[in-house]
């Protein structure tokens, strides 16, 4: 069986789904090819995974008409407090403090649980007449021919697409077959992720505690719950992960502190190995690489999905503009514009996160005093701090239309 589509998307995760909805909104026919079978993505239970959506990403969800379906489930981030410390010590006096009054536009971002976002995306994909959603299928072979790319699937069918967008995650196999090479390294850290219920209200505050083995991020969820991203050395992380829930919490408590009162686990515990993986090229013949497939980065500031959403908004806009002026939107000339728009920014962001992690995740006393004072000074310089906040909110730089 042979079918044709404007755009084929490899990967049906958050990035692939959002890409499909953005492209469909702009009138393109889209086919998503997702290796994961239908029932595996549906997991309505609370499982603790969540995302910090920067302001610009929130605007994109609004532009795609998704926001109204999830707004009631989101928690605005009203303030971010950054501290430097060590286990059991008092946080340093020079903590950095970003409150919502630093930005005119409102909260810097919102926390959204994975289960809510995924469910909304799934139903929208299925309802959209411009989107064909193939689940449990893999691309076995890909060739560029004439003005399209031909994808052969494992069920023997063929898809002819003018553009293939690769959204299948870090070090994408599809992108590598298309000739994209990666650079990067593994971190000597792993991330422990879970959700907690706590006694006292978080008041919409997000906390980032920098500790020698790595940062602990405490991100507010709806009600008296929070999501944590707890970075430890690989060895420690394995040990902690192997403990039962009580043991896990016993290790966490001195790191977490007592400011939210008593804590208890809700949902599952997750373990993620950490690495940075940057595609040397974000494009290949009739292929654009987006999201983690283009730039897998350290989760230290929760910028992975936000950065991927910028890729989506930029690529969708460039394709629309190209189509409206009669250009071949899968051509190298058009893809080169995407690469120009996104590669430098995304790579610079990944390297900044890397540097951030190196600066903070160690116990060098000189570095510690330097960063402590640095944070204190930054706190006293409103304009610099504002720039930082606008960067974190994703409202700085050349913004695509969907994020304006």
């Amino acid at each position: 069986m042979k079918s044709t589509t404007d755009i084929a998307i490899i990967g049906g995760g958050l990035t692939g789904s959002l890409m499909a909805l953005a492209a469909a909104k702009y009138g393109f026919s889209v086919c998503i090819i997702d290796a994961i079978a239908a029932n595996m993505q549906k997991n309505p239970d609370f499982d603790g995974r969540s995302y910090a959506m920067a302001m610009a990403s929130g605007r994109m969800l609004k532009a795609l008409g998704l926001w109204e379906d999830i707004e009631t489930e989101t928690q605005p981030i009203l303030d971010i407090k950054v501290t430097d410390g060590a286990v059991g010590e008092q946080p340093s006096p020079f903590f950095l403090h970003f409150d919502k009054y630093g930005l005119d536009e409102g909260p810097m971002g919102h926390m959204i649980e994975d289960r809510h976002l995924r469910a909304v995306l799934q139903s929208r994909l299925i309802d959209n007449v411009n989107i064909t959603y193939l689940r449990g299928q893999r691309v076995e072979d890909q060739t560029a021919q004439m003005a399209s790319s031909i994808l052969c699937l494992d069920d023997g069918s063929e898809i002819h697409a003018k553009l293939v967008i690769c959204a299948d995650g870090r070090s994408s196999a599809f992108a590598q077959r298309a000739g994209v090479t990666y650079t990067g390294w593994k971190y000597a850290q792993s991330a422990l992720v879970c959700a907690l219920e706590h006694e006292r209200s978080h008041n919409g505050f997000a906390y980032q505690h920098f500790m020698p083995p790595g940062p602990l991020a405490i991100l507010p969820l709806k009600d008296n719950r929070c999501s944590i991203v707890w970075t430890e050395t690989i060895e420690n992380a394995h040990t902690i992960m192997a403990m039962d829930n009580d043991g896990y919490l016993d290790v966490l408590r001195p790191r977490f502190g007592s400011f939210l009162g008593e804590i208890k686990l809700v949902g599952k515990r997750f373990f993620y190995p950490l690495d940075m993986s940057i595609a040397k090229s974000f494009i290949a013949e009739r292929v654009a690489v987006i999201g983690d497939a283009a730039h897998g980065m350290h989760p230290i500031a929760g910028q992975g999905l936000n950065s991927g959403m910028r890729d989506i908004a930029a690529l969708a806009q460039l394709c629309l503009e190209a189509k409206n002026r009669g250009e071949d939107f899968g051509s190298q000339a058009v893809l080169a514009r995407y690469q120009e728009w996104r590669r430098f920014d995304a790579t610079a962001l990944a390297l900044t996160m890397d540097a951030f992690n190196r600066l903070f995740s160690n116990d060098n006393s000189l570095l510690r005093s330097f960063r402590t004072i640095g944070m204190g000074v930054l706190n006293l310089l409103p304009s610099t701090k504002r720039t930082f906040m606008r960067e974190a909110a994703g409202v700085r730089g050349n913004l695509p239309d969907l994020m304006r």
Partner: protein
Amino acid sequence: MQASQFTVDTEEVAKFQAMADEWWDPKGKFKPLHMLNPCRLDYIVSQICAEFDRDPENHLPFVGLRILDIGCGGGLLCEPMARLGATVVGVDAAKRNIPVAQAHAKKSGLEIDYRFGTAEELVLQGEIFDVVLNMEVIEHVAEPEAYMKACQGLLKVGGLMICSTINRNTKSYIFAIFGAEYVMRWLPKGTHDWVKFITPDELYNLISNAGLQPVDKQGFVFNPVTWQWILSDRDLSVNYVTASLKP
């Protein structure tokens, strides 16, 4: 005998394909045209849409329009016009460009009528169009008045001509000749002859004398920071474009 004939043809086709690849390589020899192309197309598409009441968001908005591109080269303008649904004729006085453009159109799955010849010849053949694209040509022709009359003769009443060229002043000398040809090496030395460049007033007169009515003019301005061309209402100091109607 049959076999060698076949070989020759394949070689010819391969040669033209290679030249087409060169024309269409955004980083290659025609890089300046590729950089300018989105900006030129935005202008062309918006003018055609306004004049013929088309919506660029529609599928195939240019269906029913017959468009001529003079000096079509490798088809950088013809292909987008065809993709938007127009019936397109591309004419070029350089014979070798024709099979090159044909090879690329075939690869793109587009039907475009490419012809070796000149605007004047098409007038003699009685050809007539809704739109004539006269882009970066007039500064290269020997007799601009006669050429402009031919363009007028190719238009239907109510038809639209888009004409772009390069202004003649110190700045355009520095940018278009010294900058583009000598410093950036975007264009081969000798591509342009500065004395043949045309000021907006001169172009206005050429257009009016040919019996067309100028309706719009804008500058194509290169921004060296973003490395992009943009349209400007005010800055017509180097590259600029005009739209005219046949009353």
